[in-house]
């Protein structure tokens, strides 16, 4: 019996091993970052980065660039100079230049969706500038980790602080294909000593049409119901001391709850947004903050500031024709007849938005 069992295990090891299509790790270069921008002659310029394990230098990444009309074609061209066979199965970030994003990126992303070997969990990021330059320069930052790790840590940290939206490849596709909902992606920029999170790139369809900064990103995420533990700053509140360099107030651990209701009035879309922020005051000045009257006054002032900032964002997104909050999606679900009767991109620009903002400061720190 045991002989038969051993024999069957040995035979099945050969039969079930699946030695077809094997990939040897030591001969494979796992692409971690992919930069895409416009090249010469209306072609795509792609830069990819993978750890050069057998390099003469330690902790070295190899950056290979190539031009072509298709990403697959570019990959094959890259393979002509790469020491290893490039594999995209561990791709962490796809970096598009803002210039190419303005022309539309869905067609470029198509291969990443069609070929299941590509991970849909890669971050889609827009670079204000050249992704090639950013990847090359990131390799030279001595005090920073390897490029892929550095950008990943930068993105995750800022996503957790609600300064950047969390947009993976599949998020982009889901938002793009949903009628009445537009994608948003993180926006970064190369600086002299590092890479800076700039905020959010706003899309209309697959074209980048605008941008907002990190603080505005937090407000947008709040309206989308995705704000988590943010830190907010307000430049002016009440009567500031004229001779003081320090101005404003800082709130921490901000959480929010949003409710969006939609209705049609006189063939015009009307959106009622109710926003409730809760958080702690972490920096201000000594101003008798233990008194309820003072507390309420600060809450009221900041709620007004929040409302003003949120309305500015809504107005801006309406102006550029980007609907990141999915207001159109709500109209499609709640008012399908109206949705079908209008061109949503025009109706969205004309939509009336009513915003109510409430702020509860739950804690005022350890001093009065």
């Amino acid at each position, binding site marked *: 019996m045991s002989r038969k069992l051993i024999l069957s295990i040995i035979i099945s090891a050969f*039969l079930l091993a699946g030695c077809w299509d094997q990939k040897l790790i030591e001969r494979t270069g796992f692409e971690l970052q992919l930069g895409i921008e416009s090249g010469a002659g209306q072609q795509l310029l792609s830069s990819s980065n993978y750890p050069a394990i057998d390099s003469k230098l330690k902790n070295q990444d190899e950056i290979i660039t190539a031009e072509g009309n298709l990403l697959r074609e570019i990959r094959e061209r890259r393979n002509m100079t790469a020491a290893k066979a490039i594999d995209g*199965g*561990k791709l962490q970030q796809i970096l598009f230049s803002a210039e190419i994003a303005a022309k539309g990126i869905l067609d470029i992303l198509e291969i990443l969706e069609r070929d*299941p070997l590509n*991970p*849909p*969990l890669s971050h889609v990021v827009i670079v204000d500038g050249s992704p090639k330059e950013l990847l090359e320069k990131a390799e030279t930052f001595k005090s920073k980790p390897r490029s892929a790790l550095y950008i990943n840590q930068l993105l995750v940290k800022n996503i957790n602080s609600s300064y950047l939206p969390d947009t*993976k490849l*599949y998020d982009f*596709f*889901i938002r793009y*294909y*949903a*009628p009445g909902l537009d994608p948003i992606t993180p926006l970064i920029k190369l600086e002299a000593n590092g890479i800076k999170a700039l905020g959010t790139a706003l899309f209309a369809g697959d074209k980048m049409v605008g941008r907002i900064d990190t603080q505005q990103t937090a407000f947008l995420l709040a309206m989308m119901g995705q704000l988590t533990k943010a830190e907010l700053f307000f430049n002016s509140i009440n009567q500031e001391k004229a001779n003081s360099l320090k101005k404003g107030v800082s709130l921490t651990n901000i959480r929010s709850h949003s409710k969006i209701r939609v209705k049609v009035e006189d063939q015009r879309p009307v959106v009622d947004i109710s926003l409730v922020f809760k958080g702690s005051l972490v920096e201000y000045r000594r101003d008798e903050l233990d008194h309820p009257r003072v507390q309420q006054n600060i809450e009221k002032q900041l709620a007004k500031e929040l409302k003003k900032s949120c309305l500015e964002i809504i107005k801006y997104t309406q102006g550029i024709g980007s609907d990141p909050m999915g207001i159109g*999606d709500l109209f*499609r*679900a709640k008012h*399908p007849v109206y949705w079908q009767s209008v061109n949503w991109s025009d109706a969205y620009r004309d939509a009336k938005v009513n915003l109510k903002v409430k702020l509860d400061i739950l804690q005022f720190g350890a001093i009065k």
Partner: protein
Amino acid sequence: MPVGAADITALTHSITPSLLPFIGLELAVFVYPYVSDKKNALKSVVTANLVAMTFFIIIFLVTTGLFGENLLKSQIAPLFNLSRYYRMPFIGRVDLFFILLWFPLLEGTFRAYFFTTYNSLRRILPFQNRKVFFGLFVALSILLSRIPADLVQAFQLAEIVSISGISAIAFLILCYLFSFINKRGVKAG
């Protein structure tokens, strides 16, 4: 959204592809002669199909909710993509684990078809030595499995198998309907 926005004509188009996941029902006919508890056979078949249907409904709701109808209809394997889209700490690619778990399930399906085919052939063909016949059958199955050389051919073969499965179910339904006309061999009550 809204639910039911597509008209009846569009909804009826989904009937044919929806039949494919229910292939396997015909196996009950082959297994039935060997069932000892025949009184509960129908109940067991219906329960098994209800479990499968519940699973399909859950997958339908989750994939529609996540992908939306436009992205969903462009996908060939939404369940597989669901595993690709799932973010799990410490595990980079959940889809690879999904494929790993898929094999035992696939083996379960394959085994049922394998023994049903073997048993049917044994009854039809005049082989006396069961061990030799089983050996030949295993060898033939392995040889057949080598026919699809790539993914495209594997999909083509899967389509043939699916159509055969539907044809088998259709044949059984026809036989059942024919039994109302021709009463020979039909037990009363």
